[in-house]
């Protein structure tokens, strides 16, 4: 196993805790610090990905047809597409459960640090994908996940099967297509001949935009 070498960004953790510039007492700082250290010991970050030829919004040689306008826009002009999945592992869910019984103050900090970490892990996976296609002269765009825009959550099942995310990462779905371990990310990334300008990720395409607390407060979730 490679040693844990992720930095967990405290600013990100604070953001997920709803921090809005309050005084950071020593107690809070210590709590976030110790939960971040605990997370580093517990988390087992891992990812996998696979590349697919495109036939419109169907992945060639597969049975997956990506539905909706927003994914169509995301992959518009793409040469190929990459499916990726990343996770922090079941041990984080187990620890979160233990902390929720023991101390909710700790649990909320652990949870926020976990969100920061899964983002960092997804970013690293994305960079690896970007680097792999540089030689071919292909550029990647952003991560687009089932549940964003009008891409249905039900796409998860095929996505996970196509890249073996269950066998390789232990990701399973509930009947409602929620991923377990909870701190898991799946995404679709396009590969383009030209550098992609104009991000298709973010609030503009997000299905939660009408409800989002972050957005209401003028910040973003990722």
């Amino acid at each position, binding site marked *: *196993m490679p040693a844990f070498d992720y930095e967990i960004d405290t600013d990100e953790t604070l953001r997920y*805790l*709803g*921090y*809005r510039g*309050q*005084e950071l*007492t020593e*107690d*809070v700082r210590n*709590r*976030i610090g110790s939960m971040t250290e605990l997370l580093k010991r517990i988390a*087992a970050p891992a990812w996998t*990905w*696979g*590349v*697919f030829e495109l036939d419109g919004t169907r992945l060639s*040689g*597969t*049975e*997956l047809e990506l539905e909706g306008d927003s994914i169509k826009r995301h992959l518009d002009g793409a040469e190929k597409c*990459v499916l990726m999945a990343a996770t922090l*592992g*079941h041990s984080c869910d*187990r620890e979160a*459960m*233990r902390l*929720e*019984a*023991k*101390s*909710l*103050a700790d*649990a*909320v900090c652990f949870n926020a640090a976990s969100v920061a970490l899964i983002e960092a892990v997804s970013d690293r996976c994305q960079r690896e994908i970007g680097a*792999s296609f540089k030689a071919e002269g292909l550029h990647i765009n952003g991560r687009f996940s089932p*549940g964003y825009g009008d891409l249905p959550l039900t796409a998860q099942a*095929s996505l996970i*099967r*196509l890249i*073996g995310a*269950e*066998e*390789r990462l*232990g990701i*399973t*779905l*509930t*009947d*409602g*297509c*929620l991923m*377990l371990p*909870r701190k898991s990310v799946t995404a679709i990334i396009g590969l383009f001949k030209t550098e992609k300008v104009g991000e298709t990720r973010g609030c503009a395409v997000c*299905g*939660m935009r*009408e*409800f*989002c*607390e972050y957005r209401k407060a003028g910040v973003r979730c990722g």
Partner: protein
Amino acid sequence: MDNIQIFDGAMGTQLQARGLKLGALPELLCLTDPDLVRSVHTDYVNAGAEVVTTNTFGANRRKLMGKAEVGEVVSAAVRLARESGAQKVALDIGPTGALLKPLGAMSFSEAYELFKETVSFSDGADIILIETMSDILEAKAALLAAKENSELPVYVTMTFGEDGRTFLGTDPETAAVTLHSLGADAVGINCSLGPKELLPLAEKMLRAVPCPVIVQPNAGLPVIENGKTVYPVPPDEFSFLMRELMDMGVTIVGGCCGTTPEHISALRRAALSLSSSRSPFIPSPRFTSSRRTVSLAGSDVALIGERINPTGKKKVKEALRNRDYDYIINEAISQAEAGADLLDVNAGLPEIDEAEVLEELVTELSAVTDLPLQIDSSDPAAVERAVRVYPGKPIINSVNGKEESLAAILPIAKKYGAAVVGLTLDESGIPPTAEGRFKIAEKIVLRALSLGIPREDILIDCLVLTVSTDQSLAVETLRAVRLVKERLGVRTVLGVSNVSFGLPQREILNSGFLASALAVGLDLPIMNPLSARYMDVVRAHRVLSGQDKGAAGYIEKYSGAAKPVEAAPDSELSVKDIVLSGRKLLIEGAVKKALASETPMDVINGLLIPAINAAGELFEKGKFFLPQLMASAETVKLGFDAVKNSAEKGSVSSKGTIILATVKGDIHDIGKNIVKLLLNNYGYEVIDLGRDVPPETVVAEAKARNVKLVGLSALMTTTVKGMEETVKALRAAGCGCKIMVGGAVLTKEYADMVGADYYAKDAAESAKIAEEIFNN
């Protein structure tokens, strides 16, 4: 090579090489392209495989997604395998694809039913192969389904990562011990890694169990090349490495992902020239959780924590009655941290459904602690339900010499592979002499052995009685322990603290008795590990007996300055200041001081609630953020506990009862738990229905308890629908309660749309809503 059994290699890899679309369900090919499936089997038979595995890895109702009937797929698959001319056919069973409770949402019985359906079409197969399991509990469900619904031998393999554990944290020894104890005919490892990486894992299994060990590696560790998965180990290297595994004693071999008929052919050649000598199986008592094996070598001592037991414990009783297990989970955590090796779990309260509660409790505890559990109940039905869903090899506490008990409990221990504690009492009570107790012990041991329970799994409790009534009793117990150990060769258990019942300063007597008992050979004391004095005795014993090698544990614990236990300092801070600064250690002292001059309800209404109100206001104004509010709330909760502990029964009244639930489909419940803590802070009794709660459960509880307020939580947009259904169901059932809703994605508009009465934008708001409803 007579004793080597050769399985086939990968099915999926072969089907893909022959044009199966990626992501399609390979099992459907049994119906749509039988020739293709048969040809894969035939190639493996021609390559030398004795056993071919049916193309049914995902042939369960859940994974087939209605695209075909389980029965037609499985029957066709078995027929195709048979038609290949293989000597034997193994019916393949993979995971359901859903995670079991409590980390996941699927119940044990749902998983069991899925497997049972597949097994029910096993006609024509010779073996059932349960494989690629990550969750030992799911493997157990499959194994029980196979054993209870067919006569075929069952092999079970789990899959391990580079850290030597499955995704759910099970290590090879624990997997092997647990599955073997449940009656698997062979246990082993498949997938994920190559033969080289699996070698040390297989060795651990060979030492832990006497049954055959099966290994089916991938053709090496998969690597991603140009976005495609590649398995790098070629047939020659594969067979060379497999030879090492067989030399070590692995007798059932085959291949998993990336292996081909060429790999199997090379494997067969390697097996022909074999002189296998198995790494020795080392018999010793082994108890497991899903993630740990506690093994007693020689004179090793293991501690069983006694604190999860309602007898004389108000808070445990309350937790069991309300089915709110946080308090008990904390008892498990603190005992583990104090040095317990196993945990006794007793849910025996007359007014509850013990069988149901014990099952639930065992499930919850297994997720958060990795210590093996001792299931403690006198009700055989409760014992069976709990051991059935327990993800490991537990101890059953207990059977005794009564005919009725032997007949009821021992078959359960045998069927589920549990160790069992035998109490030396029978129809005539507890014999006064050591010889009398030995006789009963002998009867229990002989009966257990005759049922096929191995000697290592039989533990005898010679029973400790209080010396306050008869001082000769302690000596008889110790003599009995010695007799049992010497003549029956089984390990012993004692509930140590009974010895001092009725006497002052019980720790002094208990620790003295503990030392004496360990000296005569007690193996598993049942005791309170939170007592430093008992732990001192145990640690000393472990040095003197040689269990603590080089006294490393002792030195680590006791070298350097002895830290005195910090007493909570007396503080001049007000309750409000303590709460706002979240200083949990100070609150009990402050509350006790206040109780000297005020009534319990005055302390609650005049000090604690105003303090949490102040924290809530700071939060609302944006001066506090979530971790601070939670720290304050936890402090108030401890304050409440201090009031309740010192108050007379009935002097602290609840302000009202509120039901909380995270709605069906949603498995994230941290938000609901935050609300619950805050409502508790305001003096409400909260009935927490948990997560993924169906509307009917909410309705039934709301009606039964006739509550005024129900709070529903949903975190994801996709689960808000479950919220709407629940609101509708409550209205349709004519529940007069008010409904408040909350969750990260909710808004006021959405709350109105689903028909809720109140929208709680955060936990502080939910407390205000409750105040509004209950004060009117």
